[in-house]
C-alpha cells in the first residue's frame, strides 16, 4: 500500500515536471486539451487542474508566474520586472507560432482551399484560433464555399497580405518545386 502511494507520488511529480516544461517552452497558451495531449495515457481533467495549481504555487514569489487566460495556461513575466527587461531588449518584434506560419503558407501556396484541406496538408488539426488570428490580421478571407456537406468556406490570401509581404503577386513566392530538394522527409513518425 505504502509502495503504490509512493509511486503515485512519483508519477505526480513527473507529471508536474512535464507540464511545467511544456508550459515554459510553449509559444502560446496551452489549453487543458493541449496539456492532455502531452501524455500517452488518458488523464483526468481534475488531476491536471490540481497539478497546474501546484505549479502555480511553486512559482509564487518568482519573476515569472503561471496564469490562466481565456485560451489556456501560460507562464508570464511579472510586470514589476519590466524595468529590467526593458533595459535589455530594444523591443523584439513578436513572432507567429509555427502553426500559424504553416497555415498561412498553405493558404498562400494552395488557396483557395477549405480548413479541412489545410489540415490534410498539415497532417494536424488547425485550431480556429489560428484562422482567427490570420483573418483579424486581414491576411486571409473566405472567398467562396465548397459545395460539400457543411459548405465549408474556401480561404484565400488577400491583397493586403501581398502588400504586407512586399509582393506583387503570389507568383513571386519562392517556387515550390525547388524547395522540395532542400529537405528530407521525416524518417521518424510523429507520435499520435
Amino acid at each position, binding site marked *: 500500500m505504502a509502495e503504490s502511494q509512493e509511486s503515485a507520488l512519483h508519477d505526480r511529480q513527473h507529471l508536474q515536471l512535464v507540464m511545467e516544461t511544456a508550459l515554459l*517552452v510553449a509559444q502560446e497558451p496551452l489549453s487543458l486539451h493541449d496539456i492532455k495531449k502531452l501524455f500517452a495515457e488518458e488523464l483526468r481533467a481534475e488531476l491536471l487542474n490540481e497539478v497546474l495549481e501546484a505549479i502555480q504555487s511553486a512559482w509564487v514569489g518568482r519573476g515569472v508566474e503561471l496564469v490562466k487566460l481565456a485560451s489556456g495556461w501560460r507562464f508570464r513575466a511579472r510586470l514589476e520586472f519590466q524595468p529590467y527587461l526593458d533595459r535589455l531588449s530594444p523591443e523584439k518584434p*513578436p513572432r507567429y507560432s509555427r502553426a500559424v506560419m504553416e497555415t498561412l*503558407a498553405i493558404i498562400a501556396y494552395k488557396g483557395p482551399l477549405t480548413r479541412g484541406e489545410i489540415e490534410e496538408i498539415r497532417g494536424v488539426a488547425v485550431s480556429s484560433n489560428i484562422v482567427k488570428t490570420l483573418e483579424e490580421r486581414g491576411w486571409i478571407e473566405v*472567398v*467562396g464555399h465548397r459545395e460539400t456537406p457543411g459548405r465549408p468556406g474556401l480561404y*484565400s*490570401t488577400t491583397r493586403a497580405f501581398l502588400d504586407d509581404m512586399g509582393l506583387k503577386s503570389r*507568383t513571386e513566392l519562392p517556387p515550390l518545386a525547388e524547395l522540395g530538394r532542400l529537405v528530407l522527409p521525416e524518417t521518424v513518425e510523429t507520435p499520435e
Partner: protein
Amino acid sequence: MNGMAEPLALLFGQPVTELPQDLYIPPDALRVMLERFEGPLDLLLYLIRKQNLDILDIPMAVVTRQYMDYVEVMHAQQLELAAEYLLMAALLIEIKSRMLLPRPAAQEGEEHDPRAELVRRLLEYEQMKLAAFEIDQLPQAGRDFSWAAVWFDREMVVRLPEVTPVDLKTAWLSLLARAKHTRSHMVKPDELSVREQMGEILKLLAGGRYLEFSQLFDTSRGIPLLVVSFIAMLELTKEGLIAVTQAEPYQPIYVRLAGSEALEPAHG
C-alpha cells in the same frame, strides 16, 4: 536507337564481371538509388567502399569501367546528368591511360602517381560527408530540443508580428519534411497565378451573383492574365465550385457559384 539499347544490354546481357554487381534491382528503386548520389565523388566513393578496394591503390581499370556503367545507366534512366559526371569520366580515363604509359627512365626518381590528386579529393570529400552526417546527429534546436519561451506582456501595446516571404518558405520546408506521404502531391509545378485568380473569380461571384462569362475577364491587363483567368475558371468548374450555363448555342454564357441556383431561379 543504338545508344538507348546499349546500356540495357550492358545491364542484363553482359557477363557478371562486366557489371556493377549491385545493379540488379527494379528500375524504380535503381532510379531512386542513382538520384541519391551527390555527384561523381560520391559515386566513386561508393564504388570503392562497396567493394573494399584500397583507396590508396585504386585499381583504375575496374573502377573506371564500373563508373562508366553507372553513368550509362543514369543516362538511360534519363536522369539529369550533370556535366561533373562526364568530367570525372574523362579524368578517370586520363588517369588510366597515364598509368599505362611507360615512364621515361630519367624521371623514375621523382615518380608521381597520377592517382594522387584524385585520392586526395576522395578522402577530403569522404571526410566532409561523414562530418555532415555527424552534425546532423547533434541535438538541434527546434528539432530535438526546445528553447524556453516565457511570455512578457510588455505594456499591453499590441505589436503585430512581422512576416516575410522567407518565413513562408521556412514554414513550407517544415511541412515538406513532415508530410512525406503527400510530398509528391505537394511539390508540383507552380500554378500559383491560377490559384490566385480562382480566388478573385470566387470573390466576383460572391453572394450568388450571376455574371456574364466575358465580365470575368479583365482585358486591360494583358493576354497572360486572360489565359490564367480561363484556366482558373476551368479549374473552378472541375472542382465544382462554379457552374457555367448557356441556354442555347450563341447565347450569352453565365457563370455563378455552384449551388446558388436556390437563391435565384435560372433565367429562361
